């Protein structure tokens, strides 16, 4: 115990972070075999997770994630090591073990660390750790009552509450030394509707990069009722017809399609190695001229926002596509070397257990000129995807698939009837070209995005858009 007290000092937030002299020594040890860049990422994260089923709290877990990741570059090579044991001897040992993967003479023998003060644009008023569990449970009960009471077909409601408070220290051989704190709070509502042997569920998961004041910003009852409404609508719906036809994708979580089908292909992780269909296409027309898309990590308190990325670079607003022209990628340090381009504040990781790489923050298609009503009234026949489920994509080919969580058939300019079980498949770059109407009602939804550097919070967003043709899969034959 004593050794820890001597080696660490408490910062203003009351958490232990590494002493500067130890940071310097670990970085130098990491560079002892010819590495040309080394980085330390340390985190101490506290969190709470509560699960309620049908109004009764079933599980509560409190946790502390704690550890250090050490990363070394030599040209395009990258080595990563992580450990929970942060005493001096072990950190030096781990740094040397990682360095053993490289060979060469040390290039750096001294580092002067410059403390960088982070400009915090994600203010937090009610730190979750200061809020008693009973208040958190109170919010969950409100959500449960609203969803369960919506309709007698609602047979089950599961509510989850989650908060995390992540303290990070990032330092590197360029002299960077920076600390940041990320507090996030999220509520998950899953409503199940039953009819005979059939069950359909609907999920809503509002979250922000903020504390418990989240619940002053969102209407818990309305969101819970909306989940219940969606589940009830779907359990009473017929299956979606399969075939190739126009699809209208509603705003908010509908943006997941851009996230999956295009966003991942714009991450340097796949661009740098030429593994993306968007590699080498800067300045080219890659989408319909109606499409402008942005990844913006600086939106105050948005779910995917961060003051700095996980390499210590300030986040920023990156224009990816402007009026259909490819303008930029999301770039981390390592892939920036390959691409000879500057990092864009896009490097993220789930925790110290992952080397960071280029990822999305808050990604959305910008507002256009039409209204949602115009889009529907101008459509003869289409699937209207009001709520999207998740999806996935093969970055090499751009092929994607998405589940439509709540769908409707639009016929002769009117919403005709709900349909379920639809799946959208296609190729991201082709879909982008086929967007022929974009509404002005931009809104965002929250998700957890899983990829090479783990599972991270991201916002997806868009206005209502129409795609002239997508392959729709479903259990029912063609119309």
């Amino acid at each position, binding site marked *: 115990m004593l050794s820890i007290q001597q080696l660490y000092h408490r910062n203003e937030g009351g958490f232990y972070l590494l002493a500067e002299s130890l940071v310097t020594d670990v970085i130098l040890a990491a560079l002892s075999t010819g590495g040309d860049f080394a980085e330390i990422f340390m985190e101490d994260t506290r969190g709470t997770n509560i699960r309620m089923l049908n109004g009764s709290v*079933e*599980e509560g877990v409190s946790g502390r994630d704690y550890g250090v990741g050490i990363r070394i570059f030599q040209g395009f*090579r990258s080595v990563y090591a992580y450990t929970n044991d942060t005493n001096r001897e072990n950190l030096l040992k781990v740094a040397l073990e990682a360095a053993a993967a490289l060979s060469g003479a040390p290039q750096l023998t001294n580092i002067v660390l410059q403390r960088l003060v982070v400009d915090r644009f994600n203010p937090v008023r009610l730190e979750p750790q200061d809020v008693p569990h009973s208040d958190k449970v109170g919010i969950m009960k409100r959500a449960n009552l609203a969803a369960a009471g919506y309709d007698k077909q609602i047979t*089950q409601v599961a509510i989850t509450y989650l908060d995390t408070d992540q303290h990070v220290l990032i330092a590197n051989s360029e002299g960077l030394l920076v600390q940041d704190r990320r507090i996030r709070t999220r509520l998950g509502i899953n409503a*199940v509707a039953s009819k005979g042997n059939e069950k359909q569920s609907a999920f809503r998961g509002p979250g922000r990069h903020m504390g418990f004041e989240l619940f002053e910003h969102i209407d818990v009852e309305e969101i819970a009722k909306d989940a219940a409404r969606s589940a009830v609508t779907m359990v009473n719906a017929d299956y979606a017809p399969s075939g190739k036809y126009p699809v209208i994708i509603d705003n908010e979580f509908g943006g997941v399609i851009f996230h999956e089908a295009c966003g991942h292909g714009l991450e340097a992780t796949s661009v740098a190695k030429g593994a993306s269909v968007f590699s080498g296409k800067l300045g080219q027309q890659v989408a319909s001229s109606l499409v402008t898309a942005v990844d913006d990590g600086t939106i105050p308190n948005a779910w995917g926002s961060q003051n700095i990325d996980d390499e210590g670079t300030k986040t920023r607003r990156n224009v990816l596509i402007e009026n259909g022209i490819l303008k930029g990628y999301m770039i981390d340090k390592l892939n920036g070397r390959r691409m000879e381009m500057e990092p864009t504040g896009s490097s993220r990781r789930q925790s110290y257990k992952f080397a960071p790489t280029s990822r999305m923050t808050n990604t959305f298609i910008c507002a256009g000129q039409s209204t949602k009503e115009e889009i529907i009234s101008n459509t003869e026949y289409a699937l209207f995807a009001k709520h999207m489920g*998740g999806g996935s994509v093969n970055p*090499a080919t751009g092929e994607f698939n998405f589940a439509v969580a709540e769908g409707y058939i639009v016929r002769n300019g009117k919403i005709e009837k709900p349909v379920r079980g639809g799946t959208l498949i*296609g190729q991201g770059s082709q879909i982008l070209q086929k967007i022929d109407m974009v509404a002005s009602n931009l809104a965002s939804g929250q998700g957890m995005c899983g990829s090479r550097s783990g599972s991270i919070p991201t916002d997806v967003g868009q206005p209502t858009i129409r795609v002239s043709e997508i392959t729709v899969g*479903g*259990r029912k034959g063609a119309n």
Partner: protein
Amino acid sequence: MEIQEFKDRVFAAGQAAGLEDMEIYVSKSKTFSTCVFHKEVDDYTVSVEQGVGFRARFSGKVGYAYVEILDQDSVDLLISGAKANAQIIESDDEIEFFEGSPRYPEVIAYNRSLEAISAEEKIEFAKALESEAFATDERVSMVNYAVTGYSETEVYMANTKGLEQSFERNGAVSFVSAVVREGEQIKTGMRMMFGNNWGEFDAERLAQDAVREATSLLGAKSVPSGNYPILLRHDVARDLLSTFASVFSAEAVQKGLSLLEGRLGQQIASPRLTLVDDPLLKNGGASASFDGEGVATRTKKVIEAGQLTTFLHNLKTAKKDGVESTGNASRPSFKSPVGISPTNFFIEPGTLTYDELVTKMGDGIIIIDVQGLHSGANPVSGDFSLGAYGYLVENGQIVGPVEQITVAGNFFEVLETVEEIGSDLEFGSPGSRGHVGSPTLLIRHLSIAGM
């Protein structure tokens, strides 16, 4: 602080704070992984990690907490966190802290010789994956993943009822993904292997299989929508089984989340189908002598000749149903509360080879890959609708590759309409939902949406 000292401090502090029963679940692991790109080590990751999960009873209810560092702050957090979490629990579920089984099975899941394979050897293997892939076909434009990994884990459990058990397990994994290009067409193929016998890892075969799969998809077309007889290749059948494995959990059944509720003893699958959960499998990726509650594990048939014979239980669900725990309590990680999961979970192989199954199907589609299992499959209803690739089969012969289709159906109907089972049982990589395996399955028909 060492774990024994930490445990003593936690149990002492807990007793002082009025906690009734206490248990720690400790996992310690070492991992290695490397990825080669353009003959160079592109990624190299090593880790040594540990975590302590803690649960405790206070006023009759059980709360959880976990930490990753063994210091006094962590002792305090475990005690205050578990106590605060116990105080909000409203569920009346009776949770037992287990004093230990009379005896535990002998399980072999750790191979010393695997531990001794050097980093250089594993890097050479990843390099060989890449070079063999390029050597297999000149249309290979890139090998986007050539990965070798190793992990070893030790689990230790102890509680205030006297339970104290531990086991260890190790395994290596290898993964190769190749991209082939012909004109404007780009196709990918991948192969993955998990095991703890290094001698079975064959870079040439993995790379060739990945490349051949990619080239076999060149010229793929969609097919007219309709119902087709379907061959679910072993890896696709396994992924489907893994996705829907929760329907066999007694917890899902008791909560009304499984359509198998009330069907114990009934015929729920084709009489050809037997589904086994075998935690004692030698060197299995989910083999263990005790489960997440410290209960001794045992082998059982979940479906025998089509008949549902048992659900998977932990102590809590077993007590509710008035049966014995099947030893399927799971702790996917030290951070997770006790749940239920299969261990080594597989469909027993039949006699026909893959080629014989293709001939037997006559006309239909072989599905070799599906996408969207996390979004396009509903474990409650059993419905799935997934993007897919594969081959069109006519008169027992593969006539060409198929893409831009979705395959849709219902898991429970799939179980009932299995017409033949292949001899090619293969396991995937172990995860928090167990280590799942399947042979190739011939299904009467599924709905394909294409042109």
